[in-house]
């Protein structure tokens, strides 16, 4: 597997401009001769499909939900970063770049991150022009807040529904292109596999989720925007349909999978309420701007109501341990700190599965300082959501929070043009590995998804089409029938299972293994054990699972079973990656690599690289390649938030 990142030469700040000048262009009249398949309609997919169609390409656009507007991006709450420096507080493209590289614990490419910071300013302009109702100041200018460990206010937001408003903007752009006939939309269509001909991506196979029809699509280029794989843990903040299938099938067809073990655990989620829990709900970390995190100082107090615990007996562990960042330390740091106090017996709330896994996020001081009205204005909808789920009001009692799986930094490997190791297959948004290294900062996924879709792929796809594209193809090529037959066989096999257990049960079992051994804290023995357990579970799946219904109807259980089959293989790849990466970095915390205070220790000598896995067939171990990372503009430093 060749890993040429195609990073342009020249000074960092000039790379993207220079690259855009050097990229090959497709003549305007020729663009309509190309059909591009965009899979996914989240921020990345909707923005890419709309922008490519505006350029003149014909686009086929697919998604799982009944409408493109419902993609998982809709749920993002907190905000989107941009280096506008509207607050005049010292922000700049360089600072956003630096913060993001450092936040990612020096495991992302400098050139990509710099481009992201550059493009961030254009995103805000474009979204405002679409009618996205961002928060405003009284004078009419855009408002900002500081978010996710940043020391400047660069986050743009739309109440607690930023993802919704950005996605509805992208969706409206997409629907405009549907209106003019440049995008053909296929909701309730799931991509089951990629069709590769002579090493190039030439199309895909989908299942129509309403009718069950399985059919091939030819494409001149495939743009995969299928989101992250957090649901490998079963419980996560991701929407229920989020999955790894499309990305994993591409991996099995030859696309390198980079850093699969890099997972983000978000510190502020509503704790699990019981064994039946079907998903976890995020409480935006913007809450940490005004909420103070604490637990009782003594384990003997952990069962008592918050109100009965005197101020002196409260342990504000983030403020004490990290005086300069306090409650705003990065996500990985905050999550591990919460796990530690709970493991030490200081957790609060009801016991679930034998432990109190929650810490308080307390607004009493802010309510006293600012008044309940201001707090309501800032967080009203989040407080309401919390109250709906837990039956408790954060205005009168502190919230209970606990970390949950939230985002996956790993993804298909892409070069600077966002092309995978399979020519013609481009990967955008959370589905790729590109910009967040080992840890993503708050408000930067929305930025990356939209940067990829609105501004990067429209510029870079021409390079592939103009220089590497192999000419027209139709689904009459035998490769399509072959892959289609494999998809049908898989469907038949699943429906033929004679077990008794709902797939959901087996998925939960996988999630538990992943959370215990490949979650917030990892160690070599646990990972090795997990690999064994996953292999055994995979084996049992085929004996124990029951998949009801038939192939030619709406069948959510068949859909889910197909996704779980891929998670069962993918989970093992994640554990292998975590096992080989014998260092701690960002969200990847190996217990054997920490300071006495519990901070992560990186090993830049051995692991300053992206690990890229190549599929080697069903019975061989995948091959690990590396893309070395070089830092010419920032100094590798130990992250310190003290």
């Amino acid at each position: 597997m060749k890993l040429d990142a195609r990073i342009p030469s020249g000074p960092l700040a000039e790379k993207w401009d220079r690259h855009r000048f050097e990229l090959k262009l497709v003549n305007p009249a020729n663009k309509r001769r190309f059909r591009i398949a965009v899979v996914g309609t989240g921020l990345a997919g909707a923005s890419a499909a709309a922008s490519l169609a505006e350029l003149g390409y014909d686009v086929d656009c697919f998604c799982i939900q009944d409408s493109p507007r419902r993609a998982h991006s809709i749920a993002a709450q907190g905000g989107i970063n941009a280096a506008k420096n509207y607050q005049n507080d010292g922000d700049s493209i360089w600072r956003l770049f630096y913060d993001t590289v450092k936040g990612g614990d020096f495991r992302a490419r400098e050139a990509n991150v710099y481009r992201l910071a550059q493009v961030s300013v254009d995103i805000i302009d474009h979204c405002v022009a679409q009618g996205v109702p961002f928060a405003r100041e009284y004078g009419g200018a855009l408002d900002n807040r500081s978010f996710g460990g940043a020391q400047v206010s660069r986050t743009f937001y739309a109440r607690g529904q930023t993802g919704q408003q950005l996605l509805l903007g992208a969706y409206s752009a997409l629907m405009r292109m549907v209106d003019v006939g440049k995008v053909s939309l296929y909701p309730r269509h799931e991509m089951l596999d990629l069709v590769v001909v002579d090493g190039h991506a030439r199309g895909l196979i989908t299942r129509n989720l309403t009718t069950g029809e399985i059919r091939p699509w030819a494409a001149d280029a495939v743009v995969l925007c299928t989101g992250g794989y957090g649901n490998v843990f079963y419980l996560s903040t991701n929407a229920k349909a989020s999955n790894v299938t499309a990305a994993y099938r591409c991996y099995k067809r030859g696309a390198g999978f980079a850093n699969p073990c890099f997972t983000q655990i978000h510190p502020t989620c509503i704790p699990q309420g019981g064994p039946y829990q079907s998903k976890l709900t995020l409480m935006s970390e913007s809450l940490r701007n005004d909420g103070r995190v604490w637990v009782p100082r003594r384990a003997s107090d952990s069962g008592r109501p918050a109100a009965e615990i005197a101020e002196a007996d409260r342990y504000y562990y983030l403020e004490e341990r990290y005086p300069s960042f306090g409650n705003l330390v990065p996500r990985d740091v905050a999550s591990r700190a919460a796990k530690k106090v709970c493991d030490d017996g200081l957790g609060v709330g009801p016991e679930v599965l034998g432990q109190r896994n929650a810490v308080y996020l307390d607004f009493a001081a802010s309510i006293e300082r600012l008044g309940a009205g201001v707090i309501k204005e800032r967080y009203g909808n989040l407080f309401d959501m919390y109250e709906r789920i837990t039956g408790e009001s954060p205005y009168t009692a502190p919230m209970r929070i606990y970390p949950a799986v939230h985002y996956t930094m790993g993804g298909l490997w892409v070069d600077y043009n966002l092309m995978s190791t399979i020519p013609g297959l481009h990967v955008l948004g959370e589905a790729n590995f590109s910009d967040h290294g080992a840890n993503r900062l708050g408000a930067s996924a929305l930025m990356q998804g939209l940067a990829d879709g609105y501004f990067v792929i429209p510029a870079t796809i021409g390079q592939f089409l103009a220089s590497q594209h192999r000419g027209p193809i139709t689904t009459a090529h035998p490769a399509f029938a072959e892959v289609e037959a494999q998809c049908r066989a898989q469907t038949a096999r699943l429906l033929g299972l004679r077990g008794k257990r709902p797939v959901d049960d087996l998925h939960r079992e996988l999630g538990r293994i992943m959370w215990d051994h490949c979650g917030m804290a990892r160690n070599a023995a646990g990972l090795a054990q997990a690999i064994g357990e996953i292999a055994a579970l995979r084996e049992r799946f085929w004996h124990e699972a029951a998949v009801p219904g038939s192939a030619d109807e709406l069948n959510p259980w068949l859909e889910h079973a197909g996704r779980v089959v891929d998670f069962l293989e993918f989970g093992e790849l994640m554990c292998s990656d975590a096992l080989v990466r014998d260092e701690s970095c960002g969200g990847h915390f190996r217990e054997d690599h920490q300071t006495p205070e519990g901070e992560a220790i990186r090993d830049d000598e051995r692991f300053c690289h992206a690990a890229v896995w190549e599929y080697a067939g069903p019975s061989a171990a995948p091959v690990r390649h590396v893309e070395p990372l070089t830092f010419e503009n920032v100094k590798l430093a130990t992250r310190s938030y003290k």
Partner: protein
Amino acid sequence: MRVKLRIWRQSGPTDTKAGLRDYTVETDEHMSFLETLDVLNADLIRKGESPVAFDHDCREGICGACSLVIDGVPHGPRAATTTCQIHMREFRDQAVITVEPWRAKAFPVIKDLTVDRSAFDRIIAAGGYVSVRTGAAPDANAIPIGKRTAERAFDFAACIGCGACVAACPNASAMLFVGAKVAQLALLPQGQVERGSRATRMVAQMDAQGFGGCSNHGECEAVCPKSISLDAIAMLNVETMRAALERA
């Protein structure tokens, strides 16, 4: 806690034997309503029976996928709350709860509790956007927008496209949904250029998709999980009138 669910079962769009069927489920007051359906479905699968199909995704009240009529009310008993955010603490032990799909000509049933809402996408495609090409935007702060205007636009933009308004309306009208989008963009400077054609085209598409007219029942506002106000409909009427005068 134990409840009896009377659920609409329909094997496909043309099932002539569709109807309500009774199920008993063991649940817990902390569980969500959809988690109770999950438990029921797991039971049905274990027993080799056909589980109940329903739409859902985010399960946190924002994607607009969930869509159940619970005891005759779209999204169930709690105001300003989607189906997925309803918890069992809203119900009594031993309650009998009726669960049905959205019912409207423009939202045909696909299976059980799942309906086809693609008509909403077709309405948005008929002008529910600002025609701005990627790359063509001025600086985001070039046009100031008053805080109050932005807030009002947001109130309308909060629509999640669930379709409860249609399901609640005796005429199956989509005026609240359409009004919300038209009002959002009519309030913002960016929406001005296409203001008239947007309202006219979206309303025409709404009619073409088979949604009914509005006769001021107000049921839509009452069930809307995002509290979109009837002002949206008033504004839509003003906008269409304004567009007609402009054309005259």
